[in-house]
């Protein structure tokens, strides 16, 4: 069964998508989580609820609305089209936008928890040691939130790798462009190509397990150092 050629394209697309999504989400979520951990604004609950929506919504619902807004007639899709001439739906860029929104809570929650858990004290100490607000954030808050960053990155990455519904709705399954691993497996099963499906599924199982194992091992070591 192993003499048939493996189609690596979905694997690369998946890894690329997960890596880009993770980088974008860490950059976006850090200030957002920081703001949520610090603010006393009445709108905090509103933002928190919105960030957590992808946890409870069926991916198809999110995918459906994304398809509408990112589509050529949608507000974002049409603006994008007039700017770049290209389309957002059924492209890799569209996939990235969908993944970022879908995995948002997986990046924001661990970071917000980490920032909240450290409390105000380390930051106050830094202020009495002449550190400006930005300096305090970079040299105290971020290093102390390291376990949170680790969780956020791992969860985002793993969650993006395992995505199916949103990706299918806005990306379709264009081989070489938007066909990710999970969709490739689905299609192979549909076509009764069980051996290929076995190979990809087994690989994914092993890969996901290794990621989570790494996360928990490192987290345990960070705890131990405390």
């Amino acid at each position, binding site marked *: 069964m192993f003499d048939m050629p493996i189609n690596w394209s979905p694997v690369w697309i998946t890894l690329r998508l997960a890596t880009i999504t993770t980088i974008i989400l860490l950059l976006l979520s850090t200030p957002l989580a920081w703001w949520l951990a610090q603010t006393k604004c009445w709108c905090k609950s509103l933002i928190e609820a919105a960030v957590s929506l992808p946890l409870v919504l069926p991916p198809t619902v999110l995918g459906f609305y994304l398809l509408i807004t990112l589509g050529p007639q949608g507000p974002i899709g049409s603006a994008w089209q007039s700017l770049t001439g290209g389309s957002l739906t059924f492209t890799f860029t569209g996939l990235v936008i969908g993944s970022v929104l879908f995995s948002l809570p997986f990046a924001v929650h661990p970071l917000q928890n980490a920032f909240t858990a450290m409390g105000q004290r*380390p930051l106050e100490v830094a*202020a*009495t*040691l002449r550190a*400006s607000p930005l300096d305090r954030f970079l040299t105290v808050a971020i290093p102390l939130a*390291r376990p949170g960053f680790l969780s956020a990155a791992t969860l985002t990455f793993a969650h993006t790798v395992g995505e199916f519904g949103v990706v299918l709705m806005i990306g379709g399954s264009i081989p070489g462009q938007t066909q990710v691993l999970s969709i490739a497996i689905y299609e192979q099963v549909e076509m009764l190509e069980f051996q290929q499906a076995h190979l990809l599924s087994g690989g994914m199982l092993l890969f996901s397990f290794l990621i989570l194992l790494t996360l928990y091992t490192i987290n345990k070591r960070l705890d131990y150092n*405390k």
Partner: protein
Amino acid sequence: MSTLQGRFQLQQGEFTLDIDFQTPSQGITALFGPSGSGKTTLLRCLAGLERAKPGFLEINGNCWQDESRGFFLPTHQRSLGYVFQEASLFSHLSVRKNLEYGQSRTPQKQRKVAFEEAVELLGISPLLTRNPKRLSGGERQRVAIARALLTSPKLLLMDEPLAALDANSKAEIMPYLEKLHQALSIPVLYISHAIPEVMHIADNMLLIEKGQLIGSGPLLEVLTRLDLPLSHSSEAGVVIEATVTEHDETFHLTYLTFSGGRLSLRREDLAIGSTVRVVLNARDVSLALDNEIHSSILNNFQASILEILEESPGQLIIKLDISGALLLARITTKSGVLLNLQIGMKVYARVKSVALL
């Protein structure tokens, strides 16, 4: 010019801080009061960690806050050191990096305390490469004090730095605080609610109750004011600065001289000529009308009565003058009546015990 003065009004839930104070910006000023009286809140206002409105703060002529013209210098721009109650060392940095954190952010020209000086002063050179998590409570607090000193602050704020420590660690830190006092000319505002601690290190006092200032001034003055609560506590007494003049090897005694005369205490290993602080507790002072030496007590002074107050039923507190030095005596009302004690009367004060600090 060399004063620290502030006025703050701050509402925090049920609690109101409303304070207008002034204290010399040299030596150690103890901020004293019961728990919940607003000591920490006041210290946080001084540091700019709370913004009180109206609020005003000036140190040696430099204004740090003046809300009447909307001026508020943020904490990181104030030249101050803050030692928190529980030593808050950065857990992601080594002891050395913790110490360097503030120093490296202090402009070169303002650095007056050298790294080696602070490390030596607090005896922490063996700890430099260690992880803060592996230090004892006392060690952590010493590192935190050194870290604050290394920003060469114009004002050092200490929020009960000993409160979270056990008796051994307290005893371990006290000598360093005294050295600090002598070696550096940085004014310190020190929160405490322990009278012995205050007697040990303070030069001046701010007395706080329910968010308000109820008394302030030099330590001895505040300790002996009968209208303030300190003179009525079980630990009431006076602090006397005295010079070590002689050791008596025969009787195993050490003699000290102070403005009111000579004190003897059990032989202590002190250098002749050095200055020490001793506490004479009010409950260890008894009064007599004549000086017949039919008593085992060595420390006997002629005194005149300045004030008499019945502080609780059957108990008097008496303020005495011994050639310029002050003394408190706590006796029963019955003794007071039997001796017919009056203000201005000459009496003999017998001091049963002298505690060296």
